[in-house]
C-alpha cells in the first residue's frame, strides 16, 4: 500500500514537471507571436516562460530529492490543467492584447492549476498522495500571489479582478 502511494505521488510530481515544461513552451510561442507586434507583451510572455522553466526546475529538484533522477522520456500530459492560452482569437486583428491581459492569461492558468490540486486534495483518500497534491497546490498558490502582485502593480494597486468562483 505504501509503495503504491509513493508511486502515485511520483507520478503526480512527474506530471506537474511535464505541465510546467509544456507551459514554458506555450509562453515562448506566445512571446514569439507578439514579437515585432507588441514587444512589451512579447517580453512579458518570455518572462513567464522563464518562470515556468524555473518552476519546472524546482519541481525537478524535489523529485530528485525523493525519487532520484527525473526520467528523460515521460509521456506528455493529457490534461488541460494550467494551460495558458489567448483569450481572444482575434486579439492580433484588433490589436487588443495588453500587458494586463497577458498577466491575466498567466494568472488564470495558475489559478486553474491551484484549484485542480485543491480539488484533488479534497477527494484523494491516500494521505501520501494528498500531501503531494497539497504541496503542489501551495506551489501554485505562490505563483498566483506573484502574478496578482504584478497585475496589481500594473493596475495601480487596484488588485486583480479575477476571482475564483
Amino acid at each position: 500500500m505504501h509503495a503504491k502511494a509513493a508511486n502515485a505521488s511520483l507520478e503526480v510530481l512527474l506530471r506537474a514537471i511535464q505541465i510546467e515544461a509544456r507551459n514554458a513552451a506555450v509562453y515562448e510561442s506566445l512571446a514569439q507571436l507578439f514579437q515585432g507586434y507588441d514587444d512589451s507583451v512579447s517580453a512579458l510572455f518570455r518572462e513567464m516562460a522563464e518562470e515556468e522553466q524555473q518552476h519546472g526546475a524546482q519541481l525537478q529538484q524535489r523529485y530528485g530529492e525523493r525519487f532520484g533522477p527525473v526520467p528523460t522520456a515521460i509521456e506528455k500530459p493529457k490534461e488541460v490543467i494550467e494551460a495558458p492560452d489567448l483569450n481572444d482569437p482575434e486579439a492580433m486583428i484588433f490589436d487588443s492584447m495588453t500587458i494586463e491581459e497577458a498577466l491575466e492569461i498567466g494568472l488564470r492558468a495558475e489559478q486553474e492549476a491551484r484549484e485542480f490540486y485543491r480539488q484533488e486534495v479534497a477527494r484523494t483518500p491516500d494521505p501520501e498522495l494528498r500531501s503531494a497534491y497539497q504541496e503542489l497546490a501551495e506551489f501554485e498558490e505562490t505563483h498566483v500571489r506573484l502574478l496578482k502582485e504584478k497585475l496589481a502593480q500594473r493596475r495601480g494597486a487596484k488588485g486583480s479582478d479575477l476571482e475564483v468562483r
Partner: protein
Amino acid sequence: MATVTAPVQATPPVQVQQRPWRFDLFARWPWMKRLVRMRSFQFLLILPNLFMFYFFLIAGVFGTPVGNRNIIIVFVWILWWFLLIALLMPFASRIWCTVCPLPFFGDWLQRRSVIRVRSGNSPGTMNAFSGLHKRWPKQLSNIWLQNIGFLFLATFSALLVTRPIVSALVFGLLFLLATGLAMAYRLRTFCNYVCPISGFLSLYAMTSTLELRSADKDECLKCTSKACIRGSEKGWACPWNVYMGKLDRNNYCGLCFECVKSCPNDNISLFVRPFALSDVGLRGYDEVWKASIMLVLALTYSVMLLGPWSVFKDWANVSEVRNWGGFGLYALAQALLALGIFPALYYVSIRLAKWYAGAEAIPTKELFLKYGYALVPMGLLAWIAFSVPLLMVNGSYIISVSSDPMGWGMDLFGTANFPWKPLWPEWVPYLQVPILLCGFYYGVRALHKVGSGIFSDARQLQRSLLPPTVLLIGVTVVFLKLFVG
C-alpha cells in the same frame, strides 16, 4: 482524470453560447481534407480566377462602354454579386476569399513563393516573409475604413454598375492597393482592414452554414507551437491573424486552409452548422455600424432600382442626368440614414429594451453590441431579396455577353443576339416576400438566442426582446412595401 473547466471568472470577447449541432465534413469525407492540404490547393483555385479578373479589367478598359454589353458589368454586378450574396455568403462563408485574386500578387511578393512554404522567423511567425512586415496602426485596427469605403463605393454604385471603365478602375485600384499594402504591412492587412468587399463578407459570414474550426479545443490548449497562427514548415502563418484555438465566429477567417496544413495535431476541420444561429456576437461598434450600413443600402437600392420613384434613380445616376444637387441630396440622405438615423433608432430600441426589462445593471453597450447581431440575418436576407430580381430581370444578358464579352460584335457561342428576356418577372414578389420574412424570423431567433445568454429571467428576456423586435418588424414592413407595393 477530469479536466479543469473554467474555475475562474472570465469575460470572453464573444458571447459563447451552447454550441448547436455541427457536422464534420473532413471526418465524413477525408478526401476533402487531403484536397485542401495540397500545397497547391489555393493557387489552383485562384489562377483561373486571376485570368478571368485580368480579362474583365481588359474588357472594362477596351470593351464597349455600354454596360449591359460588357462582361465586367454583366458578370461582376449581376452574376458574381448574386452568387456571392445569395449562395456563397449563406452557405459557404468566406469561400470567395479563398479564390479572390486581389491579394494574389501581394501574397506572392510577401512569401516569394506561390505554392511552397518558407520556414523562418519573421517577427511573430515561423515563416520567412519578405517586405517591410510592419504593424498596422492600432487606431485603424477595425473595420471602420471598410465601412466608409463600402458606403462611398455604394454611393457611386450607379456609375460603378453601369460604366465598365469605372468598374475596371475601381478593381484595378483595389488590386494595386492590396499589393502595395502587402509590401508594407504584415500578412493580409488589406483584407482585414481595407478591402470594402471584405467588410460585408466578414459580417454576413457569421450567418453561414459553413465554419472552419478546431475539432477539439482541448488539443489547442495543450498545443505548444500555436502553428495555426504562427505557421510551420507545412503551412504559412494565418494570413488573417486569427487563432484557431479559440475561434468562435467566421468574421475574419478567410478560408485559406493554411491552418489545416500547419496544425501539428491534425485538429482543424470544416463543419456544416445551422444557418444564422451559430456566431451571434458582434464585438465592436464598427461591426454594428457595418450591419446598419448594409441594411440601409439594401433599402436605398431597393428604393432606387425597384421602387416606382424614378426621381431617386435619376439622382443616383449623376453621370447621365447630371443633377449634382439631386445626387448630393441622395448621397447625404443615404449616409445620414446609414450612419446616423438607423443606428439612432436601433439605440433607442436598446434603451427601451433596458428600461422595459428593468435591466439597468446591464451596460447599454453590451446590449447594443449583442442584440446588434439581429440586424445581420435581417440584412443578408434583405440583400438576397433585393438581388433575386436583378438576376431574374437581367440574367439573359449573361447569355448574350458570354458570346460577345467585349461588345465588339463577336459571336463565340452563337448566343450574342440572345434577346433580353426577364425570367418569370411575375414571380419576383412571391420569392422576395418569403426571403424577407425568413430574414425577420432569423433576426428574432437571433435576438432570442443572444438574450437567453444575458437574461436568466424569462419575463425580463421577453420584455428586452420587444423593442428591437418592433424595430425589425418596422424594417420588414418597409421592405415589403417596396417589394410588393
